[in-house]
C-alpha cells in the first residue's frame, strides 16, 4: 500500500478540491514518485481513495503521456522532436543519443539506467535542441553537452548543466 504512509499529503491534496476526483492526477503523480511508475495496485488504491472504479482511473491515466504504466530506467530522457527544435538540430541529438545509449525511442538500456522517449514540444522552443531528464530541463544541447550530462548523471545522479528558473535571453547590464 502506497498511500497508507502518506495520509497527511493525501488529505492536504483532497482539501484543495470540492470534488474528490480532481485529486486524481496529483495522486497518480505521487504513485509514480513512490514506485517509479503507476502500477495497477496503485490505481486500485487511488480508485478507493476517490470513490471511483478502477476503470475510471485507468481510463484517465491512459489519456496522459506523463504517466508510465510500466517500470522505466532510472533516468527518463525525453528529447523534443517538434518543428522548432528540429530546425536547430534535434534530429542529430536524437540520433547521437540512440547511437551512444544503443537504444531507440521507447527503450531502456540493459542496465536500466536510461529510458529514451522522443517526444513533442516541451515549451522551450527558443533554446532547442532540448531534453528533459526526469524533472529537469536541459537546453541548447550539443552532442558534447549531452555526453557530459549523461556522464554527470551516471556518476553523481544529477548534473549542474540543468536549467534554473528560465529566462532567455539572459538579462544584461545596460
Amino acid at each position, binding site marked *: 500500500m502506497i498511500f497508507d504512509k502518506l495520509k497527511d499529503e493525501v488529505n492536504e491534496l483532497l482539501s484543495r478540491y470540492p470534488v474528490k476526483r480532481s485529486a486524481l492526477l496529483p495522486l497518480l503523480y505521487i504513485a509514480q514518485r513512490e514506485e517509479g511508475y503507476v502500477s495497477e495496485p496503485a490505481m486500485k488504491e487511488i480508485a478507493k481513495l476517490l470513490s471511483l472504479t478502477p476503470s475510471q482511473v485507468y481510463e484517465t491515466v491512459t489519456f496522459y503521456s506523463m504517466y508510465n504504466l510500466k517500470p522505466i530506467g532510472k533516468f527518463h530522457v525525453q528529447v523534443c522532436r*517538434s518543428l522548432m527544435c528540429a530546425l536547430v538540430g534535434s534530429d542529430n541529438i536524437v540520433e547521437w543519443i540512440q547511437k551512444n545509449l544503443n537504444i531507440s525511442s521507447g527503450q531502456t538500456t540493459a542496465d536500466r539506467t536510461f529510458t529514451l522517449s522522443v517526444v513533442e514540444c516541451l515549451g522551450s522552443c527558443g533554446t532547442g535542441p532540448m531534453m528533459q531528464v526526469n524533472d529537469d*530541463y536541459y537546453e541548447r544541447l550539443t552532442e558534447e553537452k549531452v555526453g557530459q550530462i549523461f556522464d554527470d548523471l551516471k556518476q553523481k545522479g544529477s548534473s549542474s548543466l540543468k536549467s534554473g528558473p528560465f529566462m532567455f535571453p539572459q*538579462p544584461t547590464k545596460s
Partner: protein
Amino acid sequence: MAKYEKILLKNMEQPGYTGSLKEYEQTGGYQAFRKVCEGMAPSDIIETVKLSGLRGRGGAGFPTGVKWSFIPKDHPGPKYLCCNADESEPGTFKDRQLMERDPHQVLEGMAITCYTIGAETAYIYIRGEFWLGAKVLDQAIAEAKKAGYLGSNVLGTGKTINIFVHRGAGAYICGEETALLESLEGKRGKPRFKPPFPATHGLYQKPTVVNNVETLANIPHILNKGAAWFAAIGAPPKGTGTRIFCLSGHIKRPGNYEVPMGVTFREMIYEIGGGMRSDKPLKAFIPGGASAPFLTPEHLDVKMDFESLAMAGSMLGSGGITVMEEGTSMVWAALRLMEFFYHESCGKCTPCREGSSWLVQTLQRISRREGRMSDLDLLLDLCKSIEGRTVCAFGEAEVSPIVSTMRHWRSEYEELIREAEAAHPVKQEIPVLSQI
C-alpha cells in the same frame, strides 16, 4: 534600434532580480491589490480592464474585461478562476519565464481577478513538464499567504482567496479551456461543446473564468497605472499593451522579447532578433504558434497585432514566431507540425481523430517520394472536412500548416511527387471504388 518600455519583463530584466516577495514588493508589487482591497467595486475594476482594451494572450484574443463581465454577479455558491499555464503551443515559451522569474506578478493578477469575479478558489493549471515552475509558484503562494495577500481574510477584507497549483500530465489539448476544465476535474482532457460557456458552466459546472498567464500578469499594471495608460500603448484601439513574443528557429537571437503590439515582423526578426542565424535569407515564418498559418517574406511589413495578422491570412495566436531560412523544405515543416497534431488529437471528434491520421500518412507518403498528384487534392479535401467540424479550434489549427504551405509553396509538393512518379511510373490507373 528603438527601445521599448517593458511592462511584464521589466522586473526580471534587472540583473540579480530573483522574484521573491520582498523584491516584488520593492518594485511596487501588490500595490494594485492593496488598492483594490481598500474597497474598489468589482464593477469598476471590470470597467477599467474593459477600457484598457486588454485582450487575452492565450490565443483567441478575447477582451478580458468583457469575459469577466459574463460571470453572473448574484450567483449563489462558488465561482472559480483558472489560470491557463498549459503553454503547449509549439513555438511558445513565455509563460514559463513569467512564472519561474516573477511568480508574484501572476499571483497578484490572479488575486485581483478573484476579488473581481468573487472567486474564493483559483487553480493554476500548469503543464506537467514545468515541474520547476510549479515549485516556484508553490513557494510564492506560501510567501503570499504568510504576508496576508492570500488565504482567509486577505488584507483584512474578510474575503478568502486560495490559489492552488495543479499540474497537467502531458496533453496539448488541455490548453483548450474546456479540456483544461475536464482535466482539472480528474477526467480525460476532452473539450466540451460550447455553449454553455465556462462563464456560466465552467469548473464543476460553476461560473468560471479561464485566463492565460500573460493576460493575468498585465492586470496589476493596468490597475496601478490606469486604463488610459495601457490603452495608449501598442496598436490601439484593438491591440493595446505589449506582448511577449517568442522567437525560435533559424534566428540569430532566439528568446522572449516584450514589445508594444503593432511592431512589424521586419523589426522583430531583423532588429530585435538580430536577423537570420546564417547568411541564408528568410524563407518563411510562423507568426503565432504552430496553429497559425505560415507567412512569407512578403509579409514582413505586417504589423504584429490581432487585426493586421487576420488581414494577412494568419493570426497572432500565442505570440510564438518561428523563423525558417531558405533551404528548409516546407513539406517537411508541415509534416513535422502535422505529426505533432496527430499525436495530440484527443480523439473526441471523428473528423480530427481520423483526419489527422490520414493527413500524416499522406504527407509522409509524399515526403518519401511515393506520392501521387491526386494526393494534393486529397490533402485539401481532408482539410476541408476537418476545419469547422470539430468541437474545439484544434481542427482549424491542425490544417493550417498544410493549407498555408500549399498556398505559398505548392510547387514543393509537386516537385516531390514528380520525383516519385519518375521513380515509380504508374502503370495502371488505380480503380475508383465504385468501379470495382
